[in-house]
């Protein structure tokens, strides 16, 4: 294993090292803030590593594939992890609760995600996914009080374990059919295997899709999402929604492209069905949801439905592969940034108080805490795909890809879904514009109240700053995407 490989693996190495250091530190002297600092440093270092590794892109053994694309997502995920870290510090720290392990778990989970992103082999995929997942169970269940986190954790554990098993079994079948474990290998052998024993191969891939579909929470594997989103501590929810899902999707697309699974029509039909179902059902579920975390859960279902359209487009010669890859990059980036921002705001407003996650607690936010309200508005508009936000460019990509591959059914579903989506995103915005005793929109009595509100809104927590930062990026991507498009094109 020569130095080159080490260099290429820099982020992974850094993260593992951080994990080790954290353990040592915990065993020497337990101290939250120190642990926090170490984690932060570790993540930053890993970021540097990700940048550094770009010089040495190459396959590392059969297991990992270090390329720019992967490294970009590694960076993105590390950023997300940093955000989570910051949110975690301010959000859920009931006195006396010890969080050293939490940081350790965070790092491990990130490590898993990075591995997952770079995996080019079933084993590394399994490894990454499990590492990420197992750490996540613990993170979800971390708060020492309350039943919801625990319930969420146990549900997630059992269901995702079940999903992993399905995935594993699928792998087993594929292995049985092809005798290969690496994507590339599968890609080579698949066609022959298909000729010899299609059922084995198809059943296997279908099961793999099911397993991954669970992690992406696409219909019909979405049931767990709202409960886990709701039960988990808000920062963890954010982490789950961005790091876990993002990484898994990258892995899925690698598996798809390398394994050339887009060749098989029946698989594509299955995937299309899943996509359409997710777009519609996700939005329908969110339609009248009152709890903002659950609402975001449902909306995420829809969003990964949209994203699947791109994978399906692979199978049609219509759109060129570069565009497709670009769309995935852009959409995921936009989605991750927006989601992080949204959860940052939610965290800063609701904290860990479940009741505060109710949409009603956002009433009149514009007049109480304009900054948060503005941030959340932008986030919602980005989710809804209104121009000037990154979300719009993302949707723009998906629709163009869809059109070029002439996936009219999927586009129809996408349009309907987005139309429904506008409603619930707007509901949140409307709630924030409401204000008590505003009978005809211009009664005098709430003027005084406003003065009060303005007065009480001087404190801007770190979450808000974070949200603002993320949203400036979202807006930048939305208004001046050219540089990023070029960058994504070069990946």
């Amino acid at each position: 294993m020569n130095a080159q490989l080490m260099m290429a693996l820099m982020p992974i190495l850094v993260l593992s090292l951080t994990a080790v250091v954290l353990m040592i530190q915990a065993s020497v002297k337990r101290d939250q803030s120190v642990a926090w600092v170490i984690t932060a440093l570790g993540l930053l270092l890993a970021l540097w590593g990700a940048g550094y590794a770009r010089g040495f892109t190459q396959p590392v053994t059969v297991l990992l594939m270090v390329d720019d694309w992967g490294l970009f997502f590694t960076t993105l995920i590390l950023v997300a992890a940093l955000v989570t870290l910051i949110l975690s510090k301010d959000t859920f720290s009931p006195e006396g609760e010890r969080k050293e392990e939490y940081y350790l778990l965070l790092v491990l989970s990130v490590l898993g995600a990075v591995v997952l992103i770079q995996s080019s082999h079933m084993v590394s995929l399994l490894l990454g996914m499990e590492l990420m997942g197992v750490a996540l169970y613990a993170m979800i269940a971390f708060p020492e009080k309350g039943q919801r986190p625990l319930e969420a954790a146990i549900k997630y554990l059992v269901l995702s374990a079940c999903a992993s098993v399905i995935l594993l079994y699928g792998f087993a079948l594929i292995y049985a059919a092809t005798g290969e474990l690496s994507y590339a290998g599968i890609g080579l052998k698949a066609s022959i295997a298909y000729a010899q024993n299609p059922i084995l191969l198809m059943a296997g891939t279908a099961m793999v899709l099911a397993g991954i579909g669970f992690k992406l929470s696409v219909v019909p594997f979405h049931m767990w999402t709202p409960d886990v989103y709701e039960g988990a501590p808000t920062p963890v929810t954010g982490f789950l929604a961005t790091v876990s899902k993002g990484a898994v999707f990258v892995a899925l697309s690698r598996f798809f492209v390398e394994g050339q699974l887009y060749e098989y029509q029946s698989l594509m039909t299955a995937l299309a069905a899943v996509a359409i179902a997710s777009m519609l059902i996700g939005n329908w579920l969110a339609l009248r949801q009152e709890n903002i975390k659950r609402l975001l859960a449902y909306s995420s279902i829809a969003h990964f439905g949209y994203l699947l359209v791109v994978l399906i487009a692979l199978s049609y010669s219509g759109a060129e592969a570069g565009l497709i890859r670009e769309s995935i990059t852009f959409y995921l980036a936009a989605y991750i940034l927006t989601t992080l921002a949204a959860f940052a705001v939610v965290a800063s407003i609701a904290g860990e108080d479940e009741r505060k996650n109710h949409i009603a607690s956002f009433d009149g936010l514009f007049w109480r805490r304009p900054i948060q309200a503005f941030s959340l508005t932008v986030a919602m508009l980005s989710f809804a795909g209104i121009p000037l936000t990154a979300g719009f460019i993302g949707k723009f990509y998906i629709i163009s890809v869809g059109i070029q591959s002439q996936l009219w059914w999927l586009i129809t579903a996408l349009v309907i879904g987005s139309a429904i989506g506008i409603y619930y995103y707007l509901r949140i915005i409307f709630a924030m514009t409401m204000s008590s005793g505003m009978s005809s929109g211009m009664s005098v009595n709430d003027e005084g109240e406003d003065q009060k509100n303005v007065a009480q809104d001087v404190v801007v927590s770190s979450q808000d700053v974070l949200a603002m930062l993320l949203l400036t990026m979202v807006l930048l991507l939305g208004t001046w995407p050219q540089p990023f498009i070029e960058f994504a094109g070069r990946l």
Partner: protein
Amino acid sequence: MVMVNLILILLVGGVLALLSERVNENMPRRVALAVVLFDLVYFLIHLSGMPELTQLQAPLPDDPSTWLMHFKADWIPAFGISIEFALDGISMLMVLLTLVLGAVAVSASWTDVIVRRGFFEANLLWTLAGVLGVFMALDLFLFFLFWEVMLIPMYFMIAIWGHENRGYAAMKFFIFTQASGLLMLVSILALVAVNQSATGQWSFSYFDLLNTPMAEATAHWLMLGFFIAFVVKLPVFPFHTWLPDAHTQAPTAGSVILAGILLKTGAYGLIRFAVPLFPQAAMDFSYVAMVLGAVGVVYGAVLAFAQTDFKRLIAYSSVSHMGFVLLGVYAWNELALQGAVMQMVAHGFSTAALFMIAGSLQERLHTRDMREMGGLWQQMPRMGAVAMFFVVASLGLPGLGNFVAEFLVLLGLFQVDPWLTAVAALGLITGAAYSLILMQRAFQGEPNPKLVDQGLMDFGRREMLTMAVMMLALIGLGIYPQPILDIAQPVLQSLLEVTP
């Protein structure tokens, strides 16, 4: 660059208005008015350099250099998206209308809005900016961007400062327009894709996309996408139902902008994009469109007659009037098109004024219900007289702008389809019915005892000034519409050449 500045001025002005509230709560409206007027003056100064109206030569649809103004700068070269604005006669008229009515709207908000004035005026200005963008953007991506973005401040205006049922109205307005907008987005992207597969390169520029070769069926579908987006905004039966709610619930200034300007973006879109981009398809479709228009004219009039809510009645009258625009556009001959353009301008003024009257009534009586009114003329003769003027204007009294518009539309339509003309002409009769019933219910008849001793304030100087502006505009349009016609003529001529 002029066109970019026009928009920037409004955007920055919005921010200023927002901040100026910290200085003094009466500041925002002054700032807003100043900004709009400044924008208007700025525009006029740059127009003064243009050739004589009668010497305007036809702007070739595929050659921007022949247009009055043209600005192009790269934005997202990866997709051939650029910041491209261009101005021809029609857009010029629309921009002028927008700015004038913008000033009117600010004046309408003068005493109407008493909370969060800064934010209100900011939203108002931003809406105007968006509308200007729509009227000038010639890059379809940019156009779509403005098309969608202008709705957001509008949404806020309705949702925050609206009346009792504002939430529902704002939501309905936004969803109708956004959903239809999505269809247009799909159409735009599909059009671009077709063009790209033909020419091999991405471009969203109107000038490149014109006469894109495509299969007939494709053209029909894409045209439909644009058509729906535009007629929802216009609005046309049966897509009109968002309008009565939105207009009724919006604050006065909001209604003024909605009815006066926003509806026109739909008509503008039809003339600028829906037909020229898909000439053949549009012509195949024209009969359906005209039938919708004729139905809308009558349907709107009948429903207007039934209303007891002052603003709602006016809203339905807009449905009826916009029906004429649709007829004019799809009759697609010079007379009808001139009529349609004329209608856009004239209706802008007459309806805006009526909404202002409605607003001042609500301000004084705290109701829009005409059953609570009656005999108001006695206490507010000036308002009564003004109302009478605009009512007869909207029922199409010759000598005022709306008549010229409707007459030209019908005259042009008659050459295409006499029977539809006869149907649409019913609108003139029903129009008289609802206009006069409005007058009767609000201003004539026995004074409502509850109101007699309220000492209602008649129109003041500011209101009369605003009204005077619009009255003069309508009279001018009515007895000497030639300038408008001359400005629009070359454009329409070149458009007419586009279609088979």
